[in-house]
């Protein structure tokens, strides 16, 4: 039985006005293109809602105590209706979210969407990225299986190497001197209450800043100049339809993946038995691989801190131009980025293999403390190499500092990805280099 026309009109007005609370009525027609943002930001929001939804359902069954956690998850998977599916959705959405926000971060870099007036939103975005990583990490401990227990053990042990506050910080996070009941309680409170709250506050701030800066960057090819008047399109239906399609496809993908593949679950945590190898979660593999080559003071403190400072300062550098909306800034920028990738692909494996089999700085510089021989010296080599790369590529291409800084960013990015891939797939028993088959 069809409702009278006046009801349908009422529902439609309600839905439209709800949507138009968060959206402008009109958007530039060119920003509708999928190839501008690939819908990554929207995908992140969908994943966050799926995580919160499945997370709330998991809270009805999970018990955050070392002698109960593992069993409560087994019980959920075996005896609770859709228990396995809910856990799988939560697990895979969590990992996919990290990939999606990382790609979103790259999209923002390469479309220049961090230049004024979007500089502060970049900083908020970095905050959100940190929250995603901490959510992943605290959630990783929840199953209290061998994988969880030992990954968290080695990652929290890394904190010890931070000078000055390291041991205090480790004790604070662990709630003691080792991973135990206090750690699980702390991580559970952080994972299910503190981080979701921060998430919602920062996400709202992030979206508001997008509106305030006039929406998305306008995509254009390098030769085009910025139009003074953009061709408009209606949010309803043009933008909403596209967003809904992306969201539904993503949800379908997650559902199918979660039906087919189970979240991993190893044996129950045994503090007396460390598995061989014991690896950090995949998103920390880059740092773990750096640990294999540099002294902990540099791989766990100096380099990460410098990277964080560089990322925070990234939008505030005095750039020569503002190429927002152009992928890689210009055609020259694209070529330089490609050169950076090729250099990274060439140099990184050589470096890893050389350090693994040929170089032994600690032995060559026998009397020198290891923080210098395996720490400061290789670190200085990297610094000099990076500065050299920047100067040479800027000169060779007569590039703007936009293009040169972007190339340097691509270089570090490619090296980090190769290090992460090595840490994930090419390290086996005893952390020796080996092929994954």
């Amino acid at each position: 039985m069809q409702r009278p026309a006046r009801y349908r009109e009422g529902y439609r007005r309600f839905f439209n006005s709800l949507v138009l609370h968060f959206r402008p009525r009109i958007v530039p027609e060119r920003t509708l293109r999928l190839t501008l943002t690939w819908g990554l930001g929207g995908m992140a929001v969908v994943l966050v809602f799926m995580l919160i939804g499945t997370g709330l359902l998991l809270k009805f069954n999970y018990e955050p105590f070392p002698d109960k956690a593992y069993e409560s998850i087994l019980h959920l998977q075996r005896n609770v209706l859709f228990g396995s599916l809910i856990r799988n959705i939560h697990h895979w959405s969590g990992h996919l979210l990290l990939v999606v926000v990382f790609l979103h971060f790259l999209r923002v870099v390469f479309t220049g969407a961090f230049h004024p007036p979007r500089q502060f939103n970049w900083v908020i975005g970095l905050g959100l990225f940190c929250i995603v990583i901490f959510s992943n990490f605290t959630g990783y401990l929840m199953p209290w299986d061998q994988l969880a227990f030992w990954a968290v053990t080695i990652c929290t042990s890394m904190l010890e190497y931070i000078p000055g506050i390291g041991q205090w910080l480790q004790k604070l996070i662990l709630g003691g001197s080792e991973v135990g009941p206090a750690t699980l309680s702390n991580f559970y409170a952080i994972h299910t209450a503190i981080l979701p709250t921060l998430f919602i506050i920062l996400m709202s701030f992030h979206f508001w800043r997008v509106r305030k800066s006039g929406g998305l960057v306008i995509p254009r090819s390098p030769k085009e100049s910025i139009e003074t008047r953009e061709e408009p399109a209606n949010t309803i239906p043009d933008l909403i339809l596209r967003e809904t399609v992306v969201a539904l496809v993503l949800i379908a993908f997650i559902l199918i993946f979660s039906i087919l593949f189970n979240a991993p679950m190893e044996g129950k945590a045994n503090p007396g038995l460390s598995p061989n190898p014991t690896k950090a979660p995949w998103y920390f593999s880059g740092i773990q691989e750096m640990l294999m080559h540099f002294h902990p003071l540099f791989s766990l403190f100096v380099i990460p801190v410098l990277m964080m400072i560089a990322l925070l300062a990234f939008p505030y550098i005095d750039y020569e131009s503002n190429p927002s909306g152009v992928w890689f800034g210009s055609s020259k920028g694209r070529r330089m980025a490609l050169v950076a990738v090729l250099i990274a692909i060439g140099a990184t494996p050589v470096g890893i293999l050389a350090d693994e089999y040929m170089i032994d700085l600690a032995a060559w510089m026998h009397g020198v403390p290891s923080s210098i021989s395996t720490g400061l010296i290789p670190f200085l080599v990297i610094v000099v190499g990076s500065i050299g790369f920047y100067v040479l590529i800027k000169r060779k291409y007569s590039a703007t500092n936009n293009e040169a800084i972007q190339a340097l960013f691509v270089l570090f990015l490619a090296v980090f990805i190769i290090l992460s891939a090595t840490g994930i797939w090419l390290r086996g028993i005893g952390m020796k280099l080996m092929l994954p088959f």
Partner: protein
Amino acid sequence: MSKPKKQHEVDQPEQTPSRRSFFNKLWIFLGFVALVEFVGVVSAFLMPRKKEKKTGNFGTIIEAGPVEKFPKESVTAFIRGKFYLARLKDGGFLALSRKCTHLGCTIPWVSEEEKFACPCHSSAFDIRGEVVSPPAPRALDIYRVFVENNIIKVDTGKKIKRTEFRGEQVTYSKAS
């Protein structure tokens, strides 16, 4: 602001009001003090609470056994105490932590090779806990060993960090 405007503030509109800027700076300073206090209180709240420990468990004094029970050049594992009791060639005792000093993995004693071999990153330590193979940065932590009525006792309440093995760290019973 509930303070009434003073007469001379109104009379001097061109000068920077020094009292206002003083109070603004005071507010900012107090804000920093509040932030430091907040961090202090939160971290004290989160700090590990002192727990009642049942004797015989990790964190208390554990009775290992009579001196004669342990042969020279042997290593005995104590699972609840989370330590190894090593008796050296000269009869002295060392209680070694089972945690690797690199990243905290639990190390098994491999008696065929006479060393502790960490499964995580292949660090190795000898019977005295000294590093024989990196990447471990220092020797295994130890616990205080003392002898009462010919019984070996280990105080697992306090972990002792050290960079290398030294003779003073070994405990001898009067018999050996």
